[in-house]
């Protein structure tokens, strides 16, 4: 049996049938296809989470509204938060990790291609499992943070919390597997000559993010295991009556939850660090310092979790300690913002859509950062906790930060991924509508919070002075929705009849622009030799100080392409993910299903492991 698919130069892949095409996507181990799967699934979940937000905004548009009940409102904000964090922003980042990491380090795939497929299928089963709760009429309603002991059997007797807790557990497994994979990929698969400091900043930020994922997720895994034992097997971890402390949940959750904040923002920071130098036609200002700042943020990210808990009364010593670390973490963040601005300084800037979104990121994220530093002070935080001020703050960093950054990346890499250019004019319309809508939605929420409007209330009386700004906020939310309709229209229009993208439409700086758009399955016909962070730019333009452009490598020969071996597709990842989903969902249905699913999981893990037993030996048999 051949263990590797070889590429005959000039041989065309025959046009597959419809079911053949479906099967090829279900069994793909190509990092680019998995990246596309991640990106499109995440965008669908993003739309679902967005619709949940719109319903909430409609409910809050005027006082004493009765569009949804209090219970439905609880379900909406729980699913909105959970969806946006775990099913939209994280997998959108994962889409870029998948697609771009191998391209930017000059590799042909990730270290474990089948594990990569497994991560995706586990992710999708976790997302579907969470949403099955709508069909089961037991929608999670405990908030995305699921504070104990509201989640106990006593206060949440239905399966709603079970769906949430098991869904997050499934998603955590997916994220951690992907984390191991990308860590090994980045350390072990860089092209010859690419030392750590020659990696581009997006790779660096992804690298830090993977460390955060593999080190922070175990804390929520344990928190959820303890919750699962409390709910299913009668343990007492979060039971005050038995001496248990509900704060245990808060500590474990935020030991995960604060690094999670950086898991959400660092990839976007990496994208912005790629887009700015490309469109300013200038190297990233102080790139090593941006890298060190990213590492510092990752490190400090583990030491600030209790600033989410100032209002529970931890005492002055703990409050002071976490207050200081929180203020400190603003320093490397500020350093980055300064460096991005200095990258633009003196550049020959081309105002194109990816740059618009990156500039939007800098402006909006800075505002979110400033309100964040305000919360670092416990007395101020006590005023702001559980008000709309906090809602405004984290939307400025998550939407104004992560989403702007991710869409900058989407516009930037779209031609590389699809081979078509998105329409510039529609892109700018998308940007301005989103920028306007975003600020109209969330800026008034600062004010609403400061005049006392609490979070998570499903309605309010008309004489509190909140009516006008709530209506404004709702109008803003629909403007954001409109901006995404423009984006979807842009995608449909340009997919049908868009301009074909060249290999290097932006005059890019990094390796992914040196190969065709979209890239061939093997990415690099010849693995490049890297001499600099902006290697491709130096090949094209020299160093800008009179140095001649670096000689380009000789053309690739047909024999070289024929010698490339890529791993064949595999159906074990999707089967294994299904078996795991069967095992975990069995906890809500029957123990027999858990046992059968568990045995099936074990068997499929064995088949998975044995599929390429002795890969180096494949040609000998």
């Amino acid at each position, binding site marked *: 049996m051949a263990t590797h698919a070889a590429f005959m130069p000039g041989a065309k892949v025959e046009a597959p049938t419809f079911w053949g095409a479906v099967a090829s996507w279900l069994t793909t181990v190509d990092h680019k296809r998995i990246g596309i799967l991640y990106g499109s699934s995440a965008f669908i979940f993003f739309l679902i989470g967005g619709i949940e937000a719109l319903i909430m905004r409609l409910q809050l548009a005027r006082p004493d509204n009765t569009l949804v009940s209090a219970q439905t409102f609880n379900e909406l904000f729980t699913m909105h938060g959970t969806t946006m964090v775990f099913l939209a922003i994280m997998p959108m980042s994962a889409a870029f990790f998948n697609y771009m990491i191998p391209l930017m380090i000059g590799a042909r795939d990730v*270290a474990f291609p089948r594990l990569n497929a497994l991560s995706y299928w586990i992710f999708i089963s976790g997302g579907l499992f969470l949403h099955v709760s709508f069909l089961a009429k037991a929608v999670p309603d405990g908030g995305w943070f699921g504070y104990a002991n509201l989640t106990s059997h006593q206060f949440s007797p239905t399966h709603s919390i079970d769906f949430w807790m098991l869904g997050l557990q499934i998603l955590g497994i997916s994220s951690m597997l992907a984390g191991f994979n990308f860590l090994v990929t980045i*350390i072990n698969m860089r092209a010859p000559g690419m030392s750590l400091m020659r990696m581009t900043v997006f790779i660096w930020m992804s690298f830090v993010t993977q460390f955060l994922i*593999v080190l922070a997720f175990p804390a929520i895994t344990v928190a959820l295991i303890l919750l699962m034992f409390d709910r299913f097997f009668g*343990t007492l*971890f979060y039971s005050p009556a038995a001496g248990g402390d509900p704060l245990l949940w808060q500590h474990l959750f935020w*030991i995960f939850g604060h690094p999670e904040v950086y898991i959400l923002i660092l990839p976007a920071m990496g994208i912005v660090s790629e887009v700015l130098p490309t469109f300013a036609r200038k190297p990233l200002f102080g790139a090593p310092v941006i890298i060190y700042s990213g590492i510092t943020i990752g490190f400090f990210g583990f030491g600030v979790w209790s600033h989410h808990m100032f209002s529970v009364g931890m005492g002055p010593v703990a409050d002071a300690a976490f207050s200081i670390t929180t203020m400190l973490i603003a320093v490397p963040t500020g350093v980055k913002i300064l460096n991005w601005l200095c990258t633009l300084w003196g550049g020959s800037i081309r105002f194109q859509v990816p740059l618009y979104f990156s500039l939007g990121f800098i402006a909006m994220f800075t505002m979110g950062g400033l309100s964040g530093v305000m919360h670092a002070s416990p007395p101020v935080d006590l005023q702001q906790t559980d008000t709309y001020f906090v809602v405004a703050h984290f939307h400025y960093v998550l939407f104004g930060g992560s989403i702007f950054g991710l869409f900058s990346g989407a516009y930037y890499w779209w031609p590389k991924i699809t081979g078509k250019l998105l329409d510039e004019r529609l892109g700018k319309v998308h940007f301005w509508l989103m920028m306007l809508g975003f600020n109209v939605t969330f800026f008034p929420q600062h004010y609403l919070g400061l005049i006392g409007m609490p979070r998570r209330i499903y309605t309010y009386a008309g004489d509190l002075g909140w009516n006008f700004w709530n209506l404004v906020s709702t109008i803003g939310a629909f403007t954001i929705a409109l901006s995404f309709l423009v984006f979807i229209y842009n995608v449909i229009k340009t997919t049908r009849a868009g301009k074909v993208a060249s290999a290097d439409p932006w005059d890019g700086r990094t390796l992914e622009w040196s190969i065709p758009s979209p890239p061939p399955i093997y990415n690099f016909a010849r693995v490049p030799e890297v001499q600099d962070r902006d290697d491709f730019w130096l090949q094209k333009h020299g160093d800008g100080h009179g140095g001649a452009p670096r000689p380009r490598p000789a053309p690739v020969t047909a024999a070289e392409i024929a*010698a490339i*071996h890529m791993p064949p597709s595999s159906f074990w990842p999707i089967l294994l993910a299904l078996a795991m989903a069967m095992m975990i969902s069995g906890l809500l249905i029957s123990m027999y299903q858990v046992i059968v699913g568990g045995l099936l999981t074990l068997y499929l893990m064995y088949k998975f492991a044995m599929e390429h037993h002795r890969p*180096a030996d494949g*040609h000998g048999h």
Partner: protein
Amino acid sequence: MADHAATHAVHDPNIGNTGLDHRKMGMWAFLGSDCMFFGSLIGTYLAYKGKSISGPTPHDVFDIPLTSYSAALLLASSLTMVLALAALQDNRVKVAAWWLLATAAMGLHFVLNQVYEFWSFVTHHGLTLSTSLFGSTFFVLTGFHGAHVTGGVIWLLLLVSLAWRGKLDRRDYTKVEVAGLYWHFVDIVWIAIFTIIYLIP
């Protein structure tokens, strides 16, 4: 070019550009993550130590000699694991299989001791998952360690079966080395758990 193509064809896709094996590095990444997993569980145990408001205390129930014997078994199994890898690297496949089997047997003995320990706690001392915070934290922490050992035993037995079927030799030593990394890690975690739960009063 033909030479280049030929060397490329036999290049082991598991070896990265640093010269290190992907699988080994992946296992180290997993173990780093697992440190945080056990760290959180041990942290929970310590946070709740002495906070139980009813039920037997740790020193009412612990059988230190039995658990010491279990700990010794697990530590000894790390030695046989090393011997198995060394034998395989010398291509003494039969010997390696026996050492792997010995490792699995000691691991299984450890798990059976733990099953007996849990059973005696439940029946003789009335300590269950829902008796007290001590019961909850103790059974969940040591139970997850036991689950790790059980997973390791299954893994080792699969390697033994590969060896017996002639599918494991010197070329595959990394598979045994990676299993060994996991096995030694589970041992080390037990040293921490044994000290923190059983030995410190």
